[in-house]
């Protein structure tokens, strides 16, 4: 009775070992060879920039079958960590690189070229039933979102006289997201400074759900999420109180974001290219392609392309191999277009 058992067990384990060997050993050899034969371009970083880089990679792949382009999502910060260890060629970023990250890059000998590639508008949205909100000023936004507002500003009536004395329900992007960083910088003047008692989610679809099912809700999210849910949400125009970039409340749209009149809630997004990686011809080819096709593809996946002048300046920036960040580590610059930023830098 026990004999066949022991044999079959031995056979099973032997088979197991064999498959392991077949699995591991068999595949290792071609793997080692493949790594040398095909060339790869590796990107990682922000999930906001991912759709643009994915689209560019997809199109690039069609023309260059032998070059493999891969894109990861580890967040802007996580992406820079890998980038500054020279583990990736290009880093996707929804905010400028920080001083600390630049130091880490410098310590590892990684130099980079900063290339703005598109704008992302942050949409302010309310529930369609909230008939009283037809526009909002940046001052009112600050009243709502300032750190001091925590537990103090809890009713619509406290934000503007004439709005109903009903509960105010705030929704916003998760505190680890670049969207949150930029929003707090633009509204409260300091990155990461805001009240903590609002409903936040890293998944913007959750915000869409929340706001569309709550009459008393208002919140912010990347424009693309509003664009896909126009029926369920009401877009609120923002008045920055300055007349020189368009007076009165302004709605986000391709024109207003590109033209710099939808302020302060539109921001540039970037790719950072490692100078060392540009020694590889496939990376040069890919970045060239990115700058040429990136604008149209960004628009296709829901972002706002830079103006023609913008791409001209970015391309000049790239061909001149200008390293470093135009932001000088001061964080996001609110209210400047890429054209203004880049020409300031090249001055």
């Amino acid at each position, binding site marked *: *009775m*026990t004999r*066949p*058992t*022991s044999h*079959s*067990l*031995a056979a*099973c384990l032997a088979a*197991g*070992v064999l*498959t*392991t060997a077949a*699995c*591991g050993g068999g*595949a*290792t050899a*071609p*793997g*080692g060879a*493949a*790594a040398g034969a095909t060339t*790869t371009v*590796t990107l*990682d970083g922000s*999930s906001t920039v*991912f*759709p643009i*880089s*994915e*689209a560019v*990679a*997809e199109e690039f*792949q069609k023309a260059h079958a032998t070059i*493999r*382009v*891969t*894109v*990861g*999502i*580890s967040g802007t910060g996580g992406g820079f960590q*890998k980038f500054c260890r020279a*583990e990736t060629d290009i880093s996707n970023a929804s905010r400028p690189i920080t001083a600390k990250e630049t130091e880490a890059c410098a310590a590892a000998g990684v130099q980079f070229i900063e290339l703005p590639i598109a704008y992302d508008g942050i949409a302010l949205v309310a529930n369609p039933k909230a008939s009283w909100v037809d526009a909002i000023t940046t001052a009112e936004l600050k009243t709502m979102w300032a750190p001091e507002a925590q537990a103090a500003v809890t009713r619509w009536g406290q934000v503007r006289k004439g709005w109903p004395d009903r509960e105010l329900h705030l929704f916003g992007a998760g505190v680890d997201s670049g969207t949150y960083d930029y929003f707090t910088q633009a509204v409260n003047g300091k990155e990461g400074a805001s009240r903590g008692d609002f409903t936040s989610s890293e*998944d*913007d*679809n959750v915000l869409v759900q929340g706001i569309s099912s709550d009459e008393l809700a208002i919140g912010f999210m*990347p424009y*693309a*999420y509003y*664009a*896909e*849910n126009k029926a369920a949400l009401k877009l609120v125009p923002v008045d920055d109180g300055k007349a020189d970039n368009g007076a009165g409340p302004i709605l986000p749209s391709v024109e207003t974001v590109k033209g710099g009149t939808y302020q302060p809630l539109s921001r540039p997004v970037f790719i950072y290219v490692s100078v060392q990686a540009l020694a590889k011809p496939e990376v040069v080819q890919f970045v060239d392609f990115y700058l040429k096709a990136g604008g149209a*593809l960004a628009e*296709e*996946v*829901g972002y706002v392309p830079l103006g023609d002048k913008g791409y001209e300046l970015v391309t000049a920036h790239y061909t001149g191999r200008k390293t470093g960040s135009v932001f000088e580590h001061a964080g996001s610059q609110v209210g400047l277009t890429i054209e203004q930023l880049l020409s300031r830098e090249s001055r």
Partner: protein
Amino acid sequence: MAVSLKASRSSAGRRRMDVVFQVAALAVLVAALAGLGALIGDVWRDGAGRLSWTFLTTFPSRRAEQAGIYHAIVGSLYVIALTAAMALPIGVASAVYLEEYGGRSRTARFIELNIANLAAVPSIIYGLLGLGLFVRALGMGRSVMAGAGTLALLALPVVILSTREALRTVPSTIREGSYALGATKWQTIWHQVLPMALPGILTGLILSLSRAIGETAPLITIGALTYIPFAPDSVWSAFTVLPIQIFNWVSRPQVAFKENAAAGILVLLALLLTMNALAIVVRDRFQRKGRP
């Protein structure tokens, strides 16, 4: 006797209690299954329309209706096969040592305690360990190998614990009989104990691999990719897995990507069920043969 009878209720009351408990247990089971059924039904409604041969055999795309999942299926299969190949021998060997050789020594008990604790560590911690150990220290890069190594670490505690439980269920009479016939300790373990314990070992392996195949966090941490226009062709290749692709699609703003995500969930479920069914078939074969 008289005391215990006095304490308990009448015979009819006890029988009623029996029925009540039976009904309650059934109700809990039905509620749990109904919840699961509703979830699967919902996913099916969203995703069934996207399931097609093209979906299964193409690569990701920015256009939801052109996007496929081939790369992620191959990636998941690669990773899970390697994970099993690493976790099974190491896990079984560790358990055999602890159970058969380690005895009650202080060291063995210390190791045992630590393994039990490891089983409860959040998976992202394994991701960080994998990033430091496999990706960077051992220079594996963001490869299938590094991903499988990380998941094998994640699976090991459960494999070890369940193997030990399985070894304990082997009656001591079997061991003693084997020794009495002159077999050495190793011969006893290899020819008698392990075959009898195999069904339990495989159950543990199924449970831990089922957890591993659905993991996202540790693989994102070690740098599994999201856009990858090719299927991994070796253990050193870059890769992605189904849960990561699903996660990416779910978080997209476009509704069409949510259908893709639902279809991806169905594929992952099918893969998981196939894997478990296979393991159960193998287990049952051994269960029948292993009976002395």
